């Protein structure tokens, strides 16, 4: 009886039912308005508008079912501002709208992890196809859809890969607050992302999409209806990113505890600030661009159709104006996590704090001035190629500041090789290779050959997978014991690290050679000369996938079955989150702490860097 009663109300079940119901409402409503098809050539029984309206109403129904409209309606009806939702319940609050930032962080970790896993499976399918030089396993259209699903899922979902789980969980704690500035918006960003993930995957019911993650026009205009799923996915991700970024900025600017001046902020918070600035300024451009692309299809607006007066260059410009800050949205949290974790395991203060902050902000600023390096051979604005070459190469300077700060933090330290530290050191290796090869891509003469080849593909896998995903795992091994209160098995974690590091490099390094030998990206066939390299890469990729399965096994085993309690401060860190009990209590702090220094006071005497005040459970 009680179980049955709990199923009625605003929860995930209702949300899914209303989502599906809303989808059909939108579908049939659009059908009623414009008839079966507005496209003369369409040989299918629906029009594009019904597809778009179906998904939009579906998302709306999903959010209503979760209860996102309850509070606005209550306020409209004159109720006073209320407490936040579901902050004291048990396990149930992880499955619905919850405004506790720690719950949202855990939701993000599992939700993004799920879609990361699906994107990884797509990569396995790609590598299966590329075991042979000619098309073997998938039809050409299916192959392109898989490539697009892999790229879009990774680039879209993983933009929130670190800010989602770790910034939501840690930012209020690190700045001595009890919540985020906008807790309901915080929850909204997560559930929007989950709805978006489902939308992207259901593209397979509408013919998939052939454009890869960039969605170039006019290919997108002539594609299957499945392209709408790509547009809607990325637009929703854009909305989620914008809201996430604004929420982070508002929180850090307005809610820092007494004594926490800008120069005492942990470097991770600075990483979150710079990433959020990129999100807030770049993602709206993406939303606008994709809205125009949707209009091109459903309302024949022809923004991007050259024969009708539109411009494919407009799309390329707009997309990369978002797209290049996007890759720094992926990379910057990685920089920050490395600089945050190194001092703990080198037992030294973060070296050159101001330089590191300057590096992060410098990358943030410069990343808005480089987007046309993706278009060096496109014939667009050729006079400006020297400028974009210069601005792109200038980014090595602030990135180099991150390197020198990290390296000098290690210098003369007492380095412990715990698992999070191993992942951070691997970041130096991977990102260095990614950065060096980036020099070749940013150099216009050299880019003539490397552009659009496996060389550039290997380059951005080194910077994004080697930069973001490695630090994502560093953050998991470092902070999950705090977030869950349970240890992760260290032996399995070390096996995971070494297999991942070795097979990551053995997968992606040969791709530089394949690219130099002339293999273009996103092709289902390739020359016989690169067959051996591709077989080698595929086998390595499968082993890399196996390493991920090992992680999954370890994660579930340690946190669900073994459940060995973690100590409050297993790493000997001086940062404030480790002064709280594991897991962190709902209200974070009994009293708001007062900060007297930054969290990097290793080897220093004098005023204690541990924040004064009374963390919850310690009084």
């Amino acid at each position: 009886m009680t179980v049955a009663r709990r199923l009625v109300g605003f929860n995930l079940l209702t949300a899914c039912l209303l989502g599906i119901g809303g989808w059909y409402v939108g579908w049939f409503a659009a059908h009623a308005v414009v008839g079966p098809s507005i496209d003369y050539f369409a040989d299918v029984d629906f029009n594009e508008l019904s597809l778009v309206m179906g998904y939009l109403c579906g998302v709306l129904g999903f959010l209503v079912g979760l209860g996102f409209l309850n509070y606005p309606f209550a306020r409209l009806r004159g109720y006073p501002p209320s407490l936040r939702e579901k902050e004291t319940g048990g396990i149930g609050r992880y499955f619905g709208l919850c405004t506790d930032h720690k719950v949202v962080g855990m939701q993000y970790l599992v939700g993004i992890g799920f879609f990361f896993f699906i994107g990884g499976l797509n990569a396995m399918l790609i590598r299966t196809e590329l075991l042979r030089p000619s098309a073997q396993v998938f039809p050409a259209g299916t192959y392109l859809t898989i490539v697009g699903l892999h790229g879009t899922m990774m680039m879209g979902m993983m933009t929130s890969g670190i800010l989602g789980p770790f910034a939501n969980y840690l930012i209020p704690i690190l700045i001595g607050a009890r919540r985020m500035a906008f807790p309901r918006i915080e929850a909204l960003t997560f559930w929007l992302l989950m709805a978006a993930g489902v939308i992207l995957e259901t593209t397979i019911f509408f013919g998939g999409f052939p454009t890869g993650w960039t969605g170039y026009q006019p290919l997108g205009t002539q594609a299957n209806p499945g392209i709408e799923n790509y547009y809607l996915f990325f637009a929703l991700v854009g909305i989620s990113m914008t809201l996430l970024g604004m929420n982070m900025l508002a929180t850090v600017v307005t809610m820092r505890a007494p004594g926490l001046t800008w120069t005492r902020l942990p470097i991770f918070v600075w990483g979150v600030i710079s990433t959020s600035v990129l999100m807030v300024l770049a993602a709206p451009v993406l939303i606008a661009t994709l809205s125009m692309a949707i209009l091109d299809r459903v309302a024949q607006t022809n923004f991007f159709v050259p024969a009708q007066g539109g411009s494919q260059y407009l799309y390329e410009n707009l997309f990369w104006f978002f797209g290049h800050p996007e890759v720094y949205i992926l990379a910057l949290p990685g920089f920050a996590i490395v600089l945050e974790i190194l001092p703990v395991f080198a037992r030294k203060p973060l070296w050159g704090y101001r330089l590191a902050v300057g590096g992060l902000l410098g990358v943030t600023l410069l990343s808005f001035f480089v987007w046309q390096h993706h278009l060096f051979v496109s014939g667009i604005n050729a006079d400006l190629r020297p400028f974009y070459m210069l601005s792109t190469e200038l980014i090595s300077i602030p990135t180099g500041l991150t390197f020198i700060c990290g390296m000098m933090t290690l210098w003369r330290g007492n380095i412990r090789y715990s698992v999070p530290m191993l992942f951070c050191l691997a970041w130096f290796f991977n990102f260095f290779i990614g950065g060096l090869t980036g020099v070749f891509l940013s150099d216009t003469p050299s880019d003539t050959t490397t552009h659009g080849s496996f060389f550039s593909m290997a380059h951005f896998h080194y910077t994004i997978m080697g930069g973001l995903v490695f630090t994502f795992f560093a953050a998991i091994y470092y902070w999950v014991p705090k977030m869950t209160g349970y240890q992760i098995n260290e032996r399995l974690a070390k096996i995971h690290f070494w297999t991942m590091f070795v097979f990551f490099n053995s997968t992606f390094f040969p791709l530089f050679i394949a690219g130099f030998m002339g293999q273009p990206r996103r092709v289902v066939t390739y020359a016989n000369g690169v067959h051996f390299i591709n077989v080698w890469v595929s086998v390595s990729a499968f082993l890399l996938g196996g390493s991920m399965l090992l992680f999954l096994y370890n994660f579930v085993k340690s946190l669900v079955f073994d459940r060995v309690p973690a100590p409050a401060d297993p790493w000997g860190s001086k940062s404030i989150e480790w002064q709280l009990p594991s897991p962190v209590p709902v209200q974070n702090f009994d009293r708001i702490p007062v900060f007297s220094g930054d969290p990097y006071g290793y080897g220093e005497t004098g005023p204690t860097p541990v924040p004064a005040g009374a963390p919850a459970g310690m009084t």
Partner: protein
Amino acid sequence: MLSSDGRKVVTAWIVLSVIATPLVAVFAPRFYAPGNGSVQATEQVFDNTVMTAILTPVICLLVVFFAYVLVVHRAPRGQELRDGPALRSDATVQAVWVTLSSVTVLFLAGFGTYELLQNGSGGGQGPSPIANPSGTKIPVQVIAQQWQFTYRYPTYGGVETPQLVLPADTYVELHVTSLDAIHSFWAYELGVKADANPGVDNIAYVKTKGPLTFHVRCAELCGLWHGYMFNNGRVVPQAQFAAWVKSQQHAFAPVAKYLPKYATTYYPDPQRRAG
């Protein structure tokens, strides 16, 4: 000035760099893409070699630094947590690092610009190229469509052929355009890549060398059969080229009247939109 640790690292770095850089400069060109199929390809190999030679000391620095630090400065096994020295910053190290990285970066950008402005390095430069090599050039149009390339020779009556054949030791002005989606014309051995955009005349220059068979691939995702959009092209001696053009004009004379007049861009009619 430097600690003994620092002296060891700097010495090892200098020694390694002095050995490694000339080796790289000598041996790298043998492996570098895209070979010596054209003047532009050779320039790209030279460009890549110079960049690698400049980056070699940077690689050596990181290798030496990390090898030293990770071995010498590791905490002994089983040792209690012990803090290292509280070094927070060092103005000299900062200044040296920022200066060196800035000089390297500015040199690379300057060098790349110089190389680019010679003749565009085989890249597509849009309708009004700034890097326009002097001398006579024969124009050849590359028309991309889903999913093949065809070629027109405006100086030979606009004849359209399914294969690209170029005369040896000649400057060629490639006009790349598309009839539908965005493609990218990539003649690998010639070191040429230029996006094919509908309604855009994207110009790239290449100076051929001796006779050669080269690969042409589409390098921009252009839809279903993108993976099958490849072909071979040939660079042949000039006399042979003249004979080849004549044979093509003869072979395609019956269909020549159906071709549109030669233009830098084409908009086929009707524009079909898929549903």
